[in-house]
């Protein structure tokens, strides 16, 4: 299991392309990344989808940070860019920053695989650790989902009676949520004040309960957990 926290720090210089059409946010990103300029180098700031794709061809960055909604259509250009790069440059990690808490967009980002993809709410940009962690994670092929997105889902699910999620113990639920955000076992253990071994035990039991296959790849584990939380109770047999 490869995890960003296990990577030696300051070992890499991450080469970045950033796409964000809103000036204020772009300047925020600039200032935030300025703090870590010995680890992060921004090659170009792009205002829309076309210039982003061109810059990717030109600079071949390790990581792209992109707004979800940009010109030309102001819908989900960031996700389109991630999908396009999955084909053309599978080695490039993509951090999509979004103002939407809707899990739909995160799930859509993972539609063609979750490896090297992160979905963060925009306000995380200011948080030095969270942004840097996401950059490191996607560069290493991992996945990150903003905890708030997972929380919204879990909250609604918990209020709904008879949800599959309510069959889990509180601890298991917390661990599942942690898995869904892309956190490593070690990180989950740290945040829940558990031993790494206890986390592993919880993961094994809850994956068995939910009939999910525990995948050794973090990114696929994230996808499975997130999908489960989002849609497990919803589908009738008729739906694909």
């Amino acid at each position, binding site marked *: 299991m490869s995890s960003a926290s296990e990577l030696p720090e300051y070992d890499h210089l991450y080469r970045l392309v950033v796409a964000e059409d*809103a000036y*204020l*946010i772009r*300047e*925020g*990103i600039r*200032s*935030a990344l300025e*703090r870590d300029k010995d680890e992060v180098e921004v090659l170009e700031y792009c205002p829309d989808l076309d210039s982003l794709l061109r810059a990717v061809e030109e600079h071949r960055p390790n990581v792209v940070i992109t707004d979800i909604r940009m010109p030309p259509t102001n*819908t*989900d250009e960031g996700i389109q860019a991630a999908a396009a790069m999955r084909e053309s440059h599978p080695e490039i990690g993509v951090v999509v920053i979004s*103002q*939407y*808490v*809707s*899990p*739909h967009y995160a*799930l*859509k980002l993972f*539609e063609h695989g979750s490896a090297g993809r992160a979905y963060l709410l*925009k*306000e995380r*940009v*200011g*948080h*030095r650790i969270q942004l840097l962690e996401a950059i490191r994670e996607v560069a290493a092929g991992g996945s990150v989902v903003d905890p*708030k997105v997972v929380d*919204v*889902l879990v909250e*609604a699910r918990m*209020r*709904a*009676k*008879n*949800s599959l999620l309510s069959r889990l113990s509180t601890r298991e639920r917390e661990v599942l949520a942690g898995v869904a955000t892309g956190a490593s076992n070690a990180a989950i253990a740290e945040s829940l004040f558990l031993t790494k071994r206890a986390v592993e035990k919880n993961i094994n039991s809850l994956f068995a309960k939910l009939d999910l296959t525990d995948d050794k790849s973090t990114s696929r584990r994230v996808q499975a957990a997130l*999908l489960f939380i*989002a*849609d497990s*109770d*919803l*589908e*009738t047999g*008729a*739906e*694909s």
Partner: protein
Amino acid sequence: MNRSAVSRGAAFEQLDLDSEQRDSAFGTGLRRADLAVVALACAGAFAAAAIVATGGVVGDPTAFAAVLVANIATLAVAGLAWRRGRPSSLFGYLLLAEGLLVFVSSLSGSPDSVLHLIGVLGVWATAFGATWLLLVFPGSRPSAAGWIVMGIALATFVAGELPLILTSPSLEGLTTIASCGAACPANPALAVHAPSVADAFRNVEGVLQATWGVGLLFYLATRFAWASHARRRVILPVFVSAAPLAAAFTLSAVAFGLAGVESSGTARAIFAGTRILYPLGFVAGLLLARAYAGEALTFMARRLVGRPSVAAVEQLVRRVLDDPQARLVFWLPRSEQFVDRHGAHVALDPARETVTWRAFGHGDARVLAVVHDAVLSEDPELVEAVGAASLLALENRRLERDLLDSVDALRASQRRLVGAASAERRKIERDLHDGVQQKLVALRIQLELVRDLARESGLWNRLAGLAADFDDALDDLRSTAHGIYPPLLADEGLEAALREVARRSTVPLTVDLADVGRLSEDRETAIYYCCLEALQNVAKHAGDDAEALLRLWRDRNAVRFAVSDNGLGFVPRPAHNGAGLTNMTDRIGAVGGTLSVRSTPGEGTTVLGGVAIETSDRIGHVVSV
């Protein structure tokens, strides 16, 4: 004569003018003018009888007087019937004038030579008049063929009778009835005394008179043969009553004028009978025309029940008028012109001879006109019946269309209102996301950057608290913006947006969502909010144990949705729909869709709705998770 009677008469005239003197006066009492005609006819008949009876000129004065009286009576009756039954026609007056000529002809019974001559001329005029009546019926001017017959009649007088008057010592009228023989007074117009010449002219006259009679018969026969089926019914009584007259007229010319046969009492009686009876043929014709018009009205009325199209009404008009070229045209008051049923301008030129038209409407306001063959002007009752029936049918259609128009207008305005409201919500959502939220997010980022710079722990903690408050504010803003208008609906359509609703639903909810493609924004919004409202109703009213099913699918005609639950249910009372249900109905109604709610206490509730698919709706745009 008192004043009120006069003023009432005037009022009748006024009414008559109001209706453009078209409406017949059948069924009303005799008017002053009619009474005057009756009085005049009585006086004329009495005077004629007196002249003939006291003249001592005619061989059989009683019979002759009786014939004259009867003839004047039938002509007066027919004239009155026409004048009242078809006031727009001159024909009634022609019949009355003929009666007057019959009175003049009675002077041939006078012993005074000048009066006798005038009477003889009157007899001729009576014959011309009768011929004219038969030629022009039911109009007032003869056709080209009619003019030929009339020419022969005039030639008979000019080439036969006129030379006879100038050369014969005594004059007899045309008729076999008024023969005076030796008792005839001397001819005051005698210019050359030449009985042999006169005899020659008498033969010429006889030949021409026979030709005249045959021509008239032939004319009547061809006219009857060529008439349309509808018109034949009207002409028939006139033909039946006039043919014997023309035949007797011809025979008398041949037998008594040319062959020199002495007229017998029987022959005179037959001839007299045909003269007396033929005016009644006109009355029968008029009555049949009215009867046929009434029948046509019933026929049309029966077929105009329901909602006949304009084309169907026009077809019916053609059939009833027996005129394949007949058309209905419609008056456009704003542009002051007639248009046909396709909306093309129609110029109605009064100068065209073969086609004419008649407008129908209310009071002064025209609504439509029937354009028809000019021949049909002679059947005004029929055209009137057809026009009135068409007017009624199309008025009904127009009323119904006006009603539908107003319903459509109402729906369109509802649609605009709902559309405007949802466009406004979308705009607010955009403003919140792109404006306020973007700025708050930028500030939040800056706050974090500042916090990094804070070395002093008190300040650092204060900033951390501020950051947490900021996050709360952002969360609130985010959920407000989402509640105002879900961006997913605009970006990805119904399926994705409803799935997201389901993910956040607090009611246990199963979904069965098909990819229905994209619809117009107003219809997507309507369906989305209806589903949302229905789910909220489940959360509020269905009870704690309720589970819901949300379905979205598309069939050949419509995109349909259903929200059903197994909750408490209720007894539906249409008059007491809550605001939620009214909202849903309004939203769906505004986009022309339908909504139904079924509920049984203890068994749950199902809200079922559908919105028709339009050709502009895109299919595809697959969204799957």
